[in-house]
């Protein structure tokens, strides 16, 4: 019975499918049915000493996951690629909310509009398993909102500050939580401000500065023992953000998100939990070239998106079944324009719509069932279906796109399907999981409706195609893990066979709009593409207070027999932690071999091999129910000048950096 309750608890809490709750501490227990679901803990409440740099950006936290690569265009707003696939192929949500970045050049992935103080954890699901919040091929990241509970803990809070020497980053913020048995409210804000960073050898990377302010609040009200209502808002504003790898910077990236959530527990013996949310968000993104002394032409490129939506899910169990059903829908409107100012002031401004006021209407159903065959075997079946309609609202935009697609219809509806099945075998300390899935996705706004979007990586202007086929993927995955007396070993691999893989193809004979660009690419469908990902994690307690972990990651991507761009070469990492008493010391090594498979067609050059070392130390001081956590460390200890496959235009990464984080909690 007890076990069952624990199972339930975990199930409700993380919406995961954990079964073997007795192992929650080990990596095996956390995600056994769906090996492809993983959790990154972000909330400072829980991490205390665990993460070497408590006040890292969310991007740093996400990067620690084996399935995720962060594509960097500078020091800020990295783009999370899951399983070697860029954000068009994944669904990233903030507490279940769909948000669309407002930048046509992906300078504002939605992960850039939240702060670590807003979040408790990130739930990462690989492949079709991420289909609960939208159509995905690569997987999903759901950034779970941090909030208090109805636990009558009164007033609690924290004040934190941090400093980093390399880019003079200053971090400051505070959190204030208040909770009674029937009510809670949370408030937090964070400010970050950084100058240009310096790569190894003291090379200043111009236009890598950023400033960010983030603020969020929650309120929750218990209606009765099993029902509660809560509301949440997040406001995020970044300004003066440099993008050294791009020809332009950002003067403003601003987002507002608000939501209201209702949840009900213990509905019947079969239905345990019902949760529904209504949400709205708005993003403004304004690019800026005024800081660049030499540009071929001055231009403004603002973009706006607004999204409203809902989700509702219930879960429960019956007999050997443990199930979840969810529906969700959203309406998005994306608009981006470009104005170029001719040198001759008597000439009219040159204006075009780069996103022609596109509306997306999306509705989806996702069902999931875990079936426990016996003590060792279980299976997971999930099936989902979505309808997506896109309309172009601006006649100027329709006429623009008709240059390339003369018979363009302003309305396009797609039906998207996905299904996945996995089997899990668990015995004593071993867990084996294998799965097969099929999923589809619709082209993104840029892929379908983009108009002369300059990609500074391959230096082509990209044109969308509204009539692209849905991209389809067949996915195979397998994982094996074993818990040892003093650690664990885990191996994961997945393979995606994709059809109608959407990627830009050169259009000979067309000249680009952007000055000095190489040409025009139109989004087209490759007949097929293959991506393979594999990783190995080892963890071993050498001594009682000394733990070592090690990871290897390998990816391979190929489309129509040519390498795909931005695929991680063979990479490795190792951490040794020593935790005497209230101290934590950590040595961290990470690196990659030289990139062998790279895509010259997409402007890629082979990323060289590198290895860097980081050191950190932290200590807890507790007194009178108060804690001061002090963390310090040196990143890139030997000031190595390096750049990885994920660095846009091979912009070098940060050199030696000393950081100090101080967190005071009461």
């Amino acid at each position, binding site marked *: 019975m007890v076990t069952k309750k624990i199972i339930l608890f975990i199930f409700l809490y993380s919406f995961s499918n954990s079964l073997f709750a007795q192992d929650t501490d080990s990596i095996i227990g956390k995600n056994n049915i769906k090996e492809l679901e993983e959790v990154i803990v972000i909330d400072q409440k829980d991490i205390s000493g665990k993460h070497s740099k408590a006040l890292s950006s969310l991007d740093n936290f996400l990067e620690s996951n084996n399935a995720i690569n962060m594509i960097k265009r500078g020091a800020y707003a990295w783009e999370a690629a899951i399983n070697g696939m860029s954000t068009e192929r994944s669904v990233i949500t903030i507490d279940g909310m769909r948000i669309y970045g407002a930048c046509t050049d992906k300078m504002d992935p939605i992960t850039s509009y939240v702060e670590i103080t807003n979040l408790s954890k990130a739930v990462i699901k690989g492949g079709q398993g991420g289909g609960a919040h939208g159509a995905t091929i690569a997987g999903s990241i759901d950034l779970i909102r941090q909030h208090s509970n109805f636990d009558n803990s009164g007033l609690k809070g924290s004040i934190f500050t941090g400093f980093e020497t390399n880019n003079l980053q200053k971090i400051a913020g505070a959190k204030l939580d208040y909770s009674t048995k029937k009510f809670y409210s949370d408030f937090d804000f964070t400010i970050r401000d950084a100058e240009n960073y310096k790569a190894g050898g003291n090379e200043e990377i111009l236009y890598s500065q950023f400033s960010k302010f983030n603020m969020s609040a929650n309120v929750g009200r218990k209606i009765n023992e099993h029902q509660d209502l809560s509301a949440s808002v997040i406001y995020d504003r970044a300004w003066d953000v440099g993008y050294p790898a791009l020809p332009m910077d950002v003067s403003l990236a601003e987002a507002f998100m608000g939501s209201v959530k209702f949840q009900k527990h213990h509905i019947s013996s079969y239905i345990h939990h019902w949760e*529904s949310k209504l949400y709205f968000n708005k993003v403004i993104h304004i690019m800026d070239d005024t800081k660049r002394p030499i540009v*071929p*032409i001055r231009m403004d490129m603002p973009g706006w998106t607004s999204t409203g939506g*809902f989700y*509702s899910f*219930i879960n429960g169990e019956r007999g050997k079944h443990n199930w979840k059903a969810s*529906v969700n*829908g959203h*309406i998005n409107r994306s608009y981006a324009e*470009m104005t*170029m100012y*001719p*040198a*001759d002031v008597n*000439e*009219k*401004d*040159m*204006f*075009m719509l780069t996103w022609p006021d596109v*509306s997306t*209407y999306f*509705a989806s159903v996702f069902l999931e069932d875990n079936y426990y065959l016996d003590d060792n075997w279980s299976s997971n079946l999930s099936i989902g279906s979505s309808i997506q*309609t896109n*309309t172009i609202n601006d006649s*100027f935009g*329709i*006429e*623009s796109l*008709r*240059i*390339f697609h*003369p018979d363009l219809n302003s*309305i396009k509806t797609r039906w998207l399907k996905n299904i996945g099945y996995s089997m899990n075998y668990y015995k004593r300390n071993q867990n084996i999981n294998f799965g097969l899935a099929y999923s589809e996705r619709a082209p993104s706004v840029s892929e379908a409706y983009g*108009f*002369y979007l300059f990609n500074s990586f391959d230096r082509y202007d990209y044109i969308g195609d509204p009539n692209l086929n849905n991209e389809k993927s067949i996915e195979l995955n397998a994982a094996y893990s074993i818990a040892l007396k003093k650690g664990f070993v885990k191996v994961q691999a997945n393979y995606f066979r994709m059809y109608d893989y959407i990627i830009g193809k050169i*259009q000979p004979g*067309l*000249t*680009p*709009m*952007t*000055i*000095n660009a190489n040409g*025009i690419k139109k989004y087209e469908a490759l007949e097929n593409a293959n991506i393979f990902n594999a990783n190995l994690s080892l963890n071993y307690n050498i001594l009682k207070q000394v733990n070592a972990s090690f990871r290897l990651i390998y990816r391979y991507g190929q489309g129509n027999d040519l390498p795909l761009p931005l695929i991680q070469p063979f990479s490795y990492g190792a951490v040794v932690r020593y935790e005497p008493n209230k101290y934590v010391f950590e040595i961290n090594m990470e690196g990659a071999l030289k990139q062998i498979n790279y895509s010259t067609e997409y402007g890629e050059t082979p990323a060289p091999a590198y290895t860097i070392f980081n050191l950190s130390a932290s200590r807890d001081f507790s007194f009178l129910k108060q804690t001061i956590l002090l963390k310090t460390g040196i990143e890139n200890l030997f000031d190595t000048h390096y750049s990885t496959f994920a660095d846009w235009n091979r912009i070098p990464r940060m050199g030696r950096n000393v950081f100090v984080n101080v967190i005071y909690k009461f």
Partner: protein
Amino acid sequence: MKTIKYLSIIILFFGLFSCVKTKKQPIQTNPLEGKTLVQKIQNNNHNIALYTENGKFKVGYNKIFIQISKLDNSIVENANISWKPLMKMTSMSHSCPFSDLNLVDQSKSVFEGYIVFQMASNETEFWDLSFEYTLDGQNFQAHDTVHVSESLFKNIVSFTGSDNVKYLIALVAPQNPKIGLNNMSALLFERASMMSFPTLNNYSINIDPRMPSMGNHNSPNNEHLSQTNGEGLYNGKLSLTMTGYWKINLQLLDKNKNVLKGEDVTPENESSSIFLEIEL
């Protein structure tokens, strides 16, 4: 149950947003509807009213509608009319390309035609427009000065081809260019003499629109102008990807596709020697 309720609300919501508006085109009955009066030329018996789209004559191609009325304003039908524009300069006079006047479809009183004015009026040089018409076997004449204003952008181009023939190309459409694919047409004339400008058939005109202010880039999916209908009229498609100033580089080809005038635009050669201009 609640979920179903919820769902149906959402579906309704989606339905509301997905409605499509369609506008019905009104059926045009009066050919002068939407046209603006430029001026009336009067004689002792009649008024000849001149209409254009915007109430002005400008350098370049002008589509002109005329209607004759008696002095009591009653409209005259079934006239037989011809016209002639003449530029009166201090030392000489010359004409310009113009069409015959023909009755507009399904009208008995409204005539249409075009004049391609080659230059603007000024204090000492002016255009005189004269009419001759017969009504019930009686001949009438009328003439007056008309004001022709300068065009901001080059919409006619005169040149001598490699065959030593003097040509004139006039931009007919688009008069109000839009973003996207525009129907483009131009008229081709020979400048045979100061008074004679016959239209030329069976040539072709290649176009290469460029934006000199933005790296001299061009636009995709243009269609060169070729003759499909009409005396001296050449039609094609002009794609304009953004607002601003566009230079439409031209090449004139004879029926054997020999280039008579105009050069390819290349990184070294920014512009053809013959071109038209558009700003939108």
